[in-house]
């Protein structure tokens, strides 16, 4: 199962969760589309400035999708607040 972590405003959308990825989801791009359709409020947060995604703690650039699989840790972060 993929482990999902949500930080900042994404925490208001969902708590952390673990789930199997649908077969049709194999890239970070697919994953964002799928979460936008299935998780209420996700799409609005993803479109906010400063929203970022990390797979196994590596930041993903939206224009350069990476593959995702069931053993990955996937994090969504809203704009950081700083220390």
């Amino acid at each position, binding site marked *: 199962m993929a482990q999902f972590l949500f*930080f900042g405003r994404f925490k208001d959308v969902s708590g952390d969760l673990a789930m199997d990825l649908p077969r049709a989801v194999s890239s970070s791009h697919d994953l964002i589309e799928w979460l936008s359709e299935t998780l209420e409020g996700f799409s609005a947060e993803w479109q906010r400035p400063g929203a970022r995604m990390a797979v196994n*703690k590596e930041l993903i650039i939206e224009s350069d999708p990476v593959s995702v699989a069931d053993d990955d840790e996937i994090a969504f*972060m809203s704009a950081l*607040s*700083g*220390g």
Partner: protein
Amino acid sequence: MTPIIDICETPFDPEARLAAFRNRLAQSGGLVSFTGIVRGEDGLDALELSHFEGFTQAHILGIARNAAKRWPLEGVLIVHRVGKMAPNEPIVLVAAASKHRREAFEAADFLMDYLKSEAPFWKQEYSGETRRWIEPRMRDKADKKRWET
């Protein structure tokens, strides 16, 4: 030089942490520290910080290593609170030690500017029934820009 980075889930004693850090130094003639405290603003009941385990530490370590590239430092200490804290509680302690004072002053200033604007923390303010997410202020971003030349 191996920076000491500590993300604390519980309250910490800045003076005790600083004394322990100072005791490890052997060559420094200057030790500059900064303690950040939760500001007791009108109506603020609590501040809650969250972090991304491993990711946040790695990012802060990167900031400390950048400081060590710019100044000859014997030691860097960064202690940062997470979780819920009340006004007047210490939230951050930064210390930089070097042979001479100027390098220690500048490094501590640099570390705080980058922590304030770039460290992966998410912060919420609680006031009565309301809760709001905080983002870096323009001032924090401008402070960081001073080091980009």
